[in-house]
């Protein structure tokens, strides 16, 4: 048994009637880590969080907090605190009473409560607001009170259920940075539920991508983005092109054939694929470049792929331009090129082009 994990889930299943909300999930969350559960709504991320908090009990499997199995322990007996999606501030209590609630329940001496409430208010930069009622505060302020109310109890793990979901974009960005800084300052393990991939990438040390109750991939933001483990992750995180291919060879090199018959090399293939299988070649739009047909090298490198196509659509998005290119087999791909050089001749719709990419960036995934 490894006590180094702040939270460990072992083969946890949660069933609601016939619906399997969480399907054999195992996770190891390290002490002091900012860990995100990321996925679309209904993927089981909130249920997973609620099981750690003790609001739901697993149908099977076990949950450990610092090596201690939680079993059927009720929420008030667990060393975790939660920041709720709608904040769940007690409307009939003042801000100070809200923050004091947890300490009061644990019978912390009155003068210590007073001191810690003041500290917590200062920590979330709302000193002097203690006598207000939650309704008198803005959404962002309520959010910070909810955070203070949880953190003031010095939990071993803080659980956050889409805490920024109700805020407008600008405030959300500011709170993301604030939240991350706060987490580093207090050094408490954060488990953060979100459906916003950018939010997860910005803040997390590690991310678990979930869908339909299953964890698809666990990794740091870079590996999740650069090395998606399967089609769902590649599709859900960022923008990706999926080009239909057939596996030609898996070793020594991974080679696939496009529908036109052209063969290209790829850097990685998902486990379980075998020669002859239909698959998709996944590649990010910013990992590709466009060449004029005359720029095609005489002796192309083995590590580069070159595919003919025609520019059909251009969307200028400021920092870069999205070029839609139709390949010979009719499949469409998007290439993002940075608008870094003034005076460079832009691509025009209808122009013949060659799409090129480094094989290392191409990943072969199951359909």
């Amino acid at each position, binding site marked *: 048994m490894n006590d180094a994990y702040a939270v460990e889930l072992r083969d946890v299943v949660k069933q609601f009637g016939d619906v399997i909300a969480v399907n054999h999930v195992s996770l190891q969350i390290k002490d002091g880590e900012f860990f995100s559960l990321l996925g679309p709504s209904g993927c089981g991320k909130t249920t997973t969080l609620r099981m750690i908090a003790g609001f739901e009990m697993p149908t099977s499997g076990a949950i450990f907090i610092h090596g201690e199995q939680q079993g059927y322990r009720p929420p008030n007996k667990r060393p975790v605190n939660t920041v709720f999606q*709608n904040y769940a501030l007690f409307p009939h209590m003042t801000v100070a009473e809200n923050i004091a609630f947890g300490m009061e329940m644990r019978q912390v001496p009155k003068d210590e409560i007073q001191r810690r409430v003041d500290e917590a208010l200062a920590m979330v930069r709302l000193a002097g607001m203690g006598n207000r009622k939650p309704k008198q505060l803005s959404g962002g302020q309520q959010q910070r009170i909810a955070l203070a109310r949880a953190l003031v109890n010095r939990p071993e793990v803080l659980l956050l259920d889409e805490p920024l979901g109700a805020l407008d974009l600008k405030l959300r960005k500011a709170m993301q940075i604030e939240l991350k800084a706060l987490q580093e300052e207090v050094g408490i393990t954060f488990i953060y539920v979100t459906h916003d991939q950018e939010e997860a990438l910005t803040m997390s040390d590690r991310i678990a991508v979930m869908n339909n109750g299953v964890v698809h991939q666990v990794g740091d933001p870079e590996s999740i983005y650069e090395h998606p483990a399967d089609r769902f992750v590649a599709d859900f995180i960022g923008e990706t092109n999926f080009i239909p291919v057939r596996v030609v060879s898996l070793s020594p090199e991974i080679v696939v054939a496009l529908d036109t018959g052209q063969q290209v090399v790829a850097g990685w293939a998902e486990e379980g694929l075998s020669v002859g299988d239909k698959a998709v070649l996944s590649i990010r739009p910013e990992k590709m470049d466009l060449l004029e047909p005359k720029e095609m090298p005489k002796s192309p490198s083995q590590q580069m792929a070159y595919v003919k196509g025609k520019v059909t659509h251009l969307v200028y998005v400021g920092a870069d331009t999205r070029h839609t290119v139709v390949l010979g087999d009719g499949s469409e791909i998007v290439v993002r090129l940075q608008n870094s050089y003034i005076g460079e001749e832009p691509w025009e719709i209808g122009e013949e082009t060659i799409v090129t990419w480094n094989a290392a960036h191409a990943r072969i995934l199951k359909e």
Partner: protein
Amino acid sequence: MTERLRRHPELQAWLILAIPVIFLLIFFMAPLVIVFVYSFLERGKYGGVEWVFTLDNIRRVFDPLYFKTFVRSFYIAIVTTLVTLILGYPLAYFIAKSPPSRRNALVFALMIPFWTNFLIRTYAWLTLLRTHTGLINVTLMNWGIIDKPLPLYGNDFAIILGLVYGWLPVMVLPIYAALERLDESLLEAARDLYASSAKAFRRVTWPLSLPGVVAGSMLVFIPSLGAFVTPAILGGGKSLMIGNIISNQFLGAHDWPFGSALSMVMMIAMLIATLIYFRWTKKSEDVT
């Protein structure tokens, strides 16, 4: 005219309001004024009033003979309110926690007794409670569980039972409305912050349902204090409430001014009781 209305929307509002305002002024305020004026006049020979000013009626209200009934009526109304609250709160809680699809059916079931006339229902209770021929005593004696009839009828117990039965739904509905609105995540937050389920109830559920408790208590207390059908039937002519005395002044004794004086004093007493109650609940709301 329409042009002017369009330019002054507030005029439209006044026009719409005029009808209910006039209605209330005539049919709501006027009887109150009449009752107020009558309480200071002398009785006429065959009902009605003589237009002579007097304070005798008011003085008579505080005659121990009547004042004792006053105090008893308050006692009965308070006990009725407490019992309906004790029975009604868990019922409201149960309905509010039922799955949404079942809630409406339960509220509907709660309202079914209202379809039958209150008088008939009270007579139905009579057949259950009567001392020698009532269903309960007869059954219990036949089974040999008791050998003397229980005192179920013609006393305060019977009146309170009848009132509790009659007003229970009125207590349940506002409490249910308050509990149904209660955000479940507030309770989870309390539990998350180390509160036991009992503590979470006391610190979160109860204070947030208090407006419903206050409304329900008022709705039960006020009609219970003025009740006259229930004590007339279940009190067996021995146990009376102030409502019976008032109705008797108008229907039996033809002493309208004294009946008016009793009503006036009751109304003022009720107002004071209500204010005290509001003040008290407000305070306990601030504390928690």
